[in-house]
């Protein structure tokens, strides 16, 4: 799990920027890991953009002493495919509120993955079925609708 600079087409990375915390687990056929960036404790780090083999990465809220999970990143073909967010409060008129899961998508544009903010929305039934139980396991208070 890491960044573009260390990505190896044949698999893995020349340097790993993240490490997993606690036990990895499998659910609904997906390999799930809680991860943290190595050596950047003072930063507001997000989740990795690339994976080796995992399907879902989970992020611990910064400063949390209880290991509260606030975001999931779904990976597809080793790249971020979708972000599921519920740990932050949008202000200035956004419909997204803290505690309620909303979804962001990445898509290919000119050969590069970019996030399409215009497609951000709440989870649909299919996503709830696939990812809902994972979120419930790590963040029981998160709401889907």
């Amino acid at each position: 799990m890491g960044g573009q600079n260390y990505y190896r087409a044949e698999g893995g990375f020349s340097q790993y920027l993240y490490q997993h915390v606690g036990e990895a687990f499998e659910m609904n056929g997906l390999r799930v890991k809680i991860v943290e960036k190595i050596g950047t404790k003072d930063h507001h780090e997000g989740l990795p953009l690339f994976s080796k083999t995992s399907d879902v990465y989970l992020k611990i809220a910064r400063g949390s002493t209880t290991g509260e999970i606030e975001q999931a990143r779904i990976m597809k073909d080793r790249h971020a495919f979708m972000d599921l967010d519920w740990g932050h409060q949008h202000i200035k008129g956004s419909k997204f509120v803290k505690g309620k899961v909303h979804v962001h998508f990445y898509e290919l544009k000119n050969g590069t993955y970019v996030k399409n903010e215009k497609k951000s929305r709440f989870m649909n039934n299919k996503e709830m079925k696939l990812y809902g139980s994972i979120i419930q396991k790590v963040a029981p208070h998160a709401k889907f609708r």
Partner: protein
Amino acid sequence: MKHEPLFELWEDDAKLFEQMKEQYQSEEERIFFETMRYKEQDEPAYSNEDLILEDENEDLVYIVRCSEHEYEFGSGELGHQTKFYVDSLSDMLNTNLADVGVTSMQGTMLDWLRERNYKGVRYDRNLALM
């Protein structure tokens, strides 16, 4: 060959960048807006970017860019931080900091940055590139 930006600017920020061109108050302000414009168009921060950290200023304010044009900001010591999320630089800079409890100062984030003349802001901490 003309450079095609990777991302189209968010509408509010496109207006902001154009408006600011006419009213920079310092060289540091010009650098801030021109750099942020470049970053929003060509340097996504999918693993976040620390623009200013809470331990780098006396008000304990932090500003983080997420993705292209979304921003997280707040203040306080680790574990006791306020935390807000907005869809654009424009929304963040227009937020009255006292209204959301980020500082006791009556003024916007833009006022706060101007008062310190952008001291502490760094442009080299895109964590996707570190």
